[in-house]
């Protein structure tokens, strides 16, 4: 038991928790913006995957981190635009359109990977760059605090800043007010001259770009290669984290931390004498539990038809 505790109460564990949380958090913020606009973005998974792929390919061929990041963000915009075109313009069911995009991303990245590198499994043969970790000067030398605050990945810092930015955007700016009103009562928004289409489109674009950042974290954060289906459900976990966290970016951050750390826990426990199958299924058991709680809570709320 002591060894369990000591493995959890270590800096390595905290660091790994934060590492695992980052991509989930970025995508979950994307889930939040889209959800509030009334256009739930189930395509987060596919958007992350495609962005992860595009980032590695661009960085591999151009050796430019900037181009890689820009390319990945554009991928997010394109994926969201396709989703918006089908759901908002052609009025397809947004869930169906998103599922199609996810399947397309899974197959499309493997196909493009094979065309470009001759390999169907991973892009290991392509030499790609890695986005850096950041040491904060002075703070990194303070004991304990330095460990907590400094030395994380650049995208981790970006994600933390984005939590506050997204919260500000949603609850303090005209755009946020419009996103929330369009999501809650589109007719009310339309009646005061707000374009529901433009607002939802904007929200989906923001959502897609956030997912893109989560995607490149996977392929360019600590590794330098893309592997088939490397998102392995993180886009869906992000949806769960959002559902659990509710309508504020802070809540979503907490939800993401729960999922991130439960996954990190499963890594740590692998080194103990706990069967592999149990540790591996931990994050999913927590996901199911959290979603069951969420659904139960929601169904209780739904009984009230007056609001």
């Amino acid at each position, binding site marked *: 038991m002591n060894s369990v505790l000591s493995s959890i109460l270590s800096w390595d564990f905290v660091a790994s928790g934060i590492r695992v949380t980052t991509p989930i958090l970025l995508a979950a913020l994307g889930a939040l913006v889209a959800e509030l606009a009334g256009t739930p973005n189930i395509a987060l998974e596919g958007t992350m995957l495609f962005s992860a792929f595009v980032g590695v390919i661009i960085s591999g061929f151009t050796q430019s981190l900037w181009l890689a990041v820009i390319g990945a963000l554009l991928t997010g915009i394109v994926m969201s635009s396709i989703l918006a075109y089908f759901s908002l313009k052609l009025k397809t069911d947004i869930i169906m359109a998103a599922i199609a995009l996810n399947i397309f991303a899974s197959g499309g990245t493997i196909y493009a990977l094979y065309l470009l590198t001759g390999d169907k499994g991973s892009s290991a043969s392509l030499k790609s760059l890695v986005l850096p970790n950041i040491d904060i000067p002075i703070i990194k030398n303070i004991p304990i605090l330095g460990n907590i605050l400094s030395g994380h990945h650049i995208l981790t810092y970006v994600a933390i800043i984005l939590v506050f930015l997204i919260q*500000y955007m949603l609850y*303090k*700016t*005209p755009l946020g*007010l*419009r996103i*929330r*009103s369009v999501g*809650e*009562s589109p*007719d*009310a*928004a*339309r*009646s*005061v*001259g*707000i374009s529901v289409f433009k607002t939802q489109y904007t929200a989906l674009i923001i959502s897609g770009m956030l997912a893109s950042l989560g995607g490149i974290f996977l392929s360019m954060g600590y590794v330098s290669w893309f592997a088939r289906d490397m998102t392995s459900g993180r886009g869906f976990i992000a949806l769960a984290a959002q559902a659990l966290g509710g309508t504020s970016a802070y809540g979503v951050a907490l939800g993401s931390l729960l999922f991130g750390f439960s996954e990190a826990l499963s890594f740590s426990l692998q080194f103990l004498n706990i069967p592999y199958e149990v540790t591996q299924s931990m994050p999913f058991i927590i996901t199911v539990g959290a979603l069951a709680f969420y659904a139960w809570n929601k169904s*209780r*709320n739904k*009984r*009230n*038809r*007056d*609001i």
Partner: protein
Amino acid sequence: MSEYVLEMRNIWKVYPNGVTANKGVNLKVKKGEIHALLGENGAGKSTLMKILFGFERPTEGEIYYNGELVNINSPYKAIELGIGMVHQHFMLVPSLTVVENVVLGMEPRKGLSIDLKKSIEFVENEMNKYGLPVPLKEKVKDISVGMKQRVEIIKTLVRGADLIILDEPTAVLTPQETVELFKALKNLTKAGKTVIFITHKLNEVKEIADRITVLRRGKTIGEAEVKNITEKDMSRMMVGRDVDIEIDKTPAKPGKIVLEAKNLEYTRFDGVKMLKGVNLKLREGEILGIAGVEGNGQTELVDIITGMDKPENGEIFIFGKNMKEADNPYEFRKIGMSFIPADRMLHGVSKEDTIEENLISDRFNRAPFSKKGVLKYNKITEFAKRMIKEFDIRTDGPKTAVKMLSGGNIQKVVVAREFTSNSKIIVADQPTRGIDIAAADFIRRRLVKERDNNVAVLLISSDLTELLEVSDRILVIYHGEFVAHFENIKEIDEQILGEYMLGIKKMSKEEMGDLI
């Protein structure tokens, strides 16, 4: 310049599916007047106003505003011209505050943020100018219906509206709130605003409007000064024939108690106690009306009585049988209860299915409509044709999908099914809401006829005129309890009911008698 602020000339609207809603309508509105647009449901009033507000484009016709030909292609354009609309279903975002709702789409900014202080000052200024106070910092979902409507009016005013369209504004209000609304409207016209008021309540027209235009089946039937016309004339213009507004009714001959609710309690998910020990006795051969401002527990009470929901405490007895074990509405129906739900689209019909399928949805598994598990469509169609005729459902035929019908005709489908199921108890929740006079009149008469056949009727309605006209007894519900019981309807009026509905007065247990 002409004396008219608005002229709509020869407006036609033909929808892509061939339905013609407006057939050359003319409407002329003078500056500073309250102009009532009268007509039954389906007469084309709402379509005409949607065209004026830019929600719909006319197929043909011209709109002159302040003497100029205008092309209103979106609500935005209408707002720009100074036309505002208060919709029947409020266009408000429930979880936002009042002030956020008012400034939505035109938010004052400070840097990147919304300037909340300036927003509040701005809205306060407008609301004081017209004497329409609203609680700015409350969330819209927490304020009363009357307040919500006021917020809608302020929304149009801050956008610079000079012409304000109100779509059946009194349908959701209590008498007291209606008085307040009328006061506010008069203030507005004093300030030089013009009001178009859509309604089919004639007494209100008499009370508030200066002039009327009557539409019938998509055409302008006529316009008149209100002071020169009687209610009877107006109703004849609307319906096209004489309508007896009064329903002839013999005194009820109530029999034994068939439905009894004992000490019902219900707490909503958010901890609000919606029913605080409600008792009710319904006898055969009587119509028991329930009055109350919406949201005082009626919904919960109806849900429990019809088996849609379970009470937290308390019991329901139908024909003396305790319904504790019955866990679905079908068991309530089986034992002999019909139910006309308030939300017809959600609980009344399956809108994708045909009229005939909806008409038999409570008896599809019984002869003659089904034999050995196979539906007998020739029998079903035959039955549906009879119902369409008897209940005057206006449609191309029994195989039409219900969603193609107008609201009034959809309600007739529901009513046709519920009135023909041979039930001894009918629970009618807002049975005539949003449907035209003729159809509403038909349903009310039918309720009385069922009563005369010894059926027990429980009528929940926000239309007090209807309650007073149809009911034999009336209970008033306020904050989850009955606060008044009237056994002699002739002695009371809407004002008296209103006082109890708003909680100003309350009867003691003794005053209410032993039927509760």
